[in-house]
């Protein structure tokens, strides 16, 4: 089976670990436990009309990818899921920052942006117009690890764009 490495990138607390838990295990926990280092999970993804593929998902600690050690984690990745938290505008800038930095070592990786915590949309700082604008440059998904909305779609989109 084709196997691809996917890295979760984003500020701490945006919901990377939670998105992976939702995607791989269909679970959610409201308790926040800081990730140190990396946790690797995998899941098979069915693709319409194509062979299924296996995604090996690397959940990397918040700022991990910014420092030298983090770059090590990124090596070999063919997909990046950038994650921002809609209730924290600054986390969106962080995600885009991480994208620029990782682009240098991973020029060919497929990329998508998940703006997470859609269930808290009433408290979002990120405006719809901002995301409408961003959609011109990369695929954007509003997600909620809590409710599951948009999570499957974000991973499926990346999987579908990975080279066969």
């Amino acid at each position: 089976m084709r196997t691809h490495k996917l890295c979760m990138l984003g500020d701490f607390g945006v919901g990377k670990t939670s998105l992976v838990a939702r995607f791989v295990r269909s679970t959610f926990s409201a308790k926040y436990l800081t990730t140190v280092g990396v946790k690797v999970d995998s899941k098979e993804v069915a693709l319409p009309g194509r062979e299924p593929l296996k995604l090996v998902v690397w959940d990397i600690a918040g700022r991990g990818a910014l420092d030298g050690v983090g770059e090590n984690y990124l090596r070999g990745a063919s997909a990046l899921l950038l994650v921002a938290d809609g209730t924290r505008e600054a986390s969106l800038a962080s995600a885009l920052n991480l994208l620029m930095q990782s682009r240098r070592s991973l020029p060919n990786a497929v990329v998508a942006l998940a703006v997470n915590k859609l269930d808290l949309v009433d408290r979002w700082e990120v405006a719809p117009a901002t995301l409408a604008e961003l959609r011109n440059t990369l695929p954007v998904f509003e997600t909620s690890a809590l409710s599951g909305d948009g999570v499957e779609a974000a991973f499926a989109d990346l999987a579908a764009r990975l080279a066969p």
Partner: protein
Amino acid sequence: MTPMPALPSAVEDYLRDTLMRRAHPLLLSFGDDWQLRELHGDPAVYGLDAEHGLRELQDLFIGLPLDGHQDLPFVEFSNGRSAHVHLIADAPGFHVLLLDAEEERERQRAQQQLGHDAVLTGHEQSKAIGRLTEIRNELERQRASLEEANALKNALIATLSHEFRTPLTSIFGYLHLLERRLDGSGNAAQALQAVRRNATYLFTLAENLLEYGRGESGAALLNPVEVDLTLLARDLDAMFRPLAEDKGVAFRVDLLVEETAPPVFDEVRLRQIVVNLLSNAVRYTTKGEIACDLVWRDGRLSIDVADSGIGISAEFRDSVFKPFNRGGQSGSKGAGLGLSIVRRLIEQMRGELRLESELGRGTRFRVELPPLARAAAKSAASHAAPFPRGVQALVVDDDPDIAQLLEVLLIDLGFEVRVAENASQAIAEATRQPPDVLLIDVELPGLSGNAAVFQLRSHGYRGRIVTLSATSTGDARDASLRAGADHYLTKPLNLDQFVGVMQRALQGEASGQNPDADRRG
């Protein structure tokens, strides 16, 4: 450099023992194709059983070359244990060495958790403090206006009984007449009419209270209709002549019509104006005459109410138009709401009001009202300006009764209507065929209406969006507008308001603008 002397073997042994115990080293030696050749240590420490363990290790090195050294610090394995993972090339194969990092990880986690929690709660706190400041200012504003409103409310209650006394007395009077005449001459019909008129008067007073309750800002929509002035004059005569003549005051209503077409006004409000002026005149006049002249000429309606009553001194000219003023007209018990409502209604209708008075000689109110039809065409919802046919609306509500009500209303207004019952359906439907107007409940099960609105806007949907909610707080409204709604309506629906909002929504669409779409809060 001098070569480092070897450690004493006892120390070396001790070191090896300690490190081995702490690091739980696990060494796996592979051929070049992940063929396991040798194993040192216990794979179970890292939850690496024979079946899946190898897979898990292999997944770690996807996309990485196996012919160089690789370091992966702090890798959490599926049993939750953390290890530093090292790949050591040894052609033609390689070794994978795992060293326990659990303690170190926990120490780092505890440290970072504190920092992260502080940042996250700090963010929440600064937002909360901002909100608190807003709330405090808002409360301060509310307190100030409440104080004023409260004083008014107390006055209102005190005046209420007084306001209702006159018409009620009259009703009872006529009922008395009715009883007497029924067995005698039996002109019952007329008496019954009087009862009805006075009921109308009471109704007007109630309308006054309502009007007052709306406040200055909440001017309701005007409802323009053709007014039968002859009927109005006759009703006024029937309503006030008995009251005036009771007090020995002469009473007349004259009507002069020079236009061919009847005037267009909000009839309820027009009646409110004249009835209030006349009841004011009747109250403060004890001799002489009360005269009401209605003139419909040159496209303007003038109403002239003159009495020979106690008059209003110059210093009180302004205060008689304030609600519940006292002593405005000398010796009175307070004028109540009437004149303040009159003034407000006239302002709403863009008319003019003048007051001439001489203490002890009498008072004259002159009102000029411009034709309402033109001015009102915009604001006067349904009847005045019908909606263009065939505008597409998508209604989203999980309550089928409300969805149906909206559907019927909109079809009635000439819309083409589709209905969805949840947010995902709404997004799919609006994406498939974008409606001109989306009406969506905020409190939907699952994905909220606001989330759907946000997603549609962030996908570039440019139609109008009206959100409907059972919550009437400013916060809830702001959240909806921030998500990208153009209008926010609260349930239960006020139909006038609904129609007005739909109209504004469509006008906004015509001008191709979405003033709220870019709003930040």
